[in-house]
Every structure is written in C-alpha cells, then in structure tokens.
C-alpha cells in the first residue's frame, strides 16, 4: 500500500550508491523481501518505471526475491519455514512458536555499468 514512497527510497538509495561507487548507470537491482512483508512487488515495479525515467536507473532491471518466513518452535526447537497462515510448528504441531524471519526488506546488491564498459 505504501509502495510509492518505498520505491522512491529504493531509487534514492541506488542513485546514492551509484554516485559513491562512481558508476555510469545501473543495470540490475537485487532486492530481498521476506514473505511477511506487505509490499506488493507489482506496484513497486510500476512505480519504479515511472520514477526512474530520465535517470541513471531507467534501464535497470528490478529483481525482487521473496524469502520464506521462519519460525522457531519453543517446544521442539525446530527452526524452519512455515505456512504463513498456520501459526503452529510444522514438525510437532505446537502453537508455542516465535517468528524469527520473514520481514526482511532490503537492497542486497546492484549490477552497474562502469564508465570503462
């Protein structure tokens, strides 16, 4: 739902990093998003296309990799993925779990064009 300011943040960070690393243009951006994050990739792609027109990001390919949610079971110590609509341990069935992963949302890396390319 807040994909516009979020996409603006992606653009700002990438332009900043491009400048810092003295690159010519960005070819690819790799984003990691946890399964429990609420951001809708389709909306981010849509805003990205609009916001990057005329910038050094305009031809960049945006990759958003989803990673699964992870739980830790306090009863059997199982740590692993879970179906995000079933709030119980998939190994022992216990509801005594805590969520230890799945809310990630960060820019992992980008592929840039050097001035020498």
């Amino acid at each position: 739902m807040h994909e516009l300011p979020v996409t603006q943040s992606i653009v700002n960070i990438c332009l900043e990093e491009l400048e810092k690393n003295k690159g010519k243009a960005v070819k690819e951006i790799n984003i990691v998003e946890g399964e429990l994050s609420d951001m809708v990739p389709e909306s981010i792609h849509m805003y990205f296309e609009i916001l990057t027109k005329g910038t050094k990001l305009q031809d960049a390919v945006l990759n958003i990799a989803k990673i699964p949610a992870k739980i830790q079971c306090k009863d059997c110590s199982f740590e692993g993925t879970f179906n995000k609509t079933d709030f119980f341990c998939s190994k022992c069935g216990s509801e005594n779990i805590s969520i230890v992963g799945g809310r990630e949302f960060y820019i992992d890396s980008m592929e840039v064009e050097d001035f020498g390319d």
Partner: protein
Amino acid sequence: MEIKIVRQILDWNEDCHRELRDLLDEKKVLMINVMGSPGGGKTTLITKLIEGLHDKNKIGVIEADIAGKIDAEKIAALNIPVVQLNTDGACHIEAMSIKNILPDFDLEELDIMFIENIGNLVCPAEFDIGEDLKLSILSVPEGDDKVEKYPLMFSRADALVISKYDMKEYFKFDEERVINNAKALNNEIEIFKVNSVTGEGTKELLQWIQNHRK
C-alpha cells in the same frame, strides 16, 4: 561490476525513528504508540489511562486523525497538553510527522507521551514513530479473527489490549483464539482485557506502563 549494498529500504523512516528514540531517552520521556481500528476505543482508553497516571506522571498526547480535532478536544478537557495532527488523507503517520510536532511540547516537563495513531489496522503497523511501546487495541465487537487477518498489527505490538471486554458474551468472542494467535506471532506480547469506560482491567495495564517509566 557488482556492488554489494545491504541497505534497509525503510531506513528513511527508521533513521528518524532512532533519532527520536535517542531524544526521548535523553529527556526521559516514555512514548506509547496507541493503534487500533476506528471506534476500537483508543481515545477512551487513553482518557482512562490519563486518569490513572496523571497523579504521578506528567503526560502529553499527540492525536492523529485525517481531519478534525474531536479527540484532541476530549484530551484538552482533561487539562493535558495535547496537539492535533491532521494528515489530510494519509492513512498512517511516520516518524518525521512526530519529529515536526515534538517542538510543540516541553519535553523537560513530560514523563509519558501517548500518540493516538490513525484508526487503521493495516498501515500504522509498518511505521515506527519514535515510540518505546506499541499498544494495539482490538475491541470485542470487531471479532476474534482480526489477529489472523491483520498479523502485522499484532506481531509488532508490545501489548494487545482487548477493549470493550464487558461485551464478550454478546459477541461470542473467543478470547483464547485471539490470545493464542497473538502469542504465536509474538511470544512476548502482553495481554490486557479492559472496560475503558469503567476502568475495569486497567490496573494491570497502568502498572505495566508505570514499570516502563524512564
């Protein structure tokens, strides 16, 4: 060439949130972000908590609404410093909104600051706003399936307040379901069951808040 970045995309808000946390720690002000649906009982609860806290604590309130000053007027009637924040359409508030409004308060003269967030079970959960504690209200008439339907609001809360608890029998409210779902999302969450009009059940919540004083 590949550049490794590893930067959080929501840092634009998180940086401001951390700045506010540092300021409030320095001034020893406990900030509580009160969230919940429209009509869930946020203002009524805050009013009741002020009643129980103001003898020993200096309190300030930021009231956030899309429009109007209805809630700010209720708080002002208690002689508590309050500022109304109107978002003019935005569905949540961000850390910068709080940063801009804090100069309206004398933080040296405050112990506790309540922020009544926009009535909304979705968006406020995503944005930290400088608070020490997140308090999410679920009122009985809203139903016992809301923790499953709106997990982020409850997974990130420090406390779940089940309000209008006196209505439980009228709405066939399965409180065990609510509590189990909330604990599964967040094992550390505190649960309180209150009638904010009479104050029944607020004693434990008042103590919990008092225990967090800086």
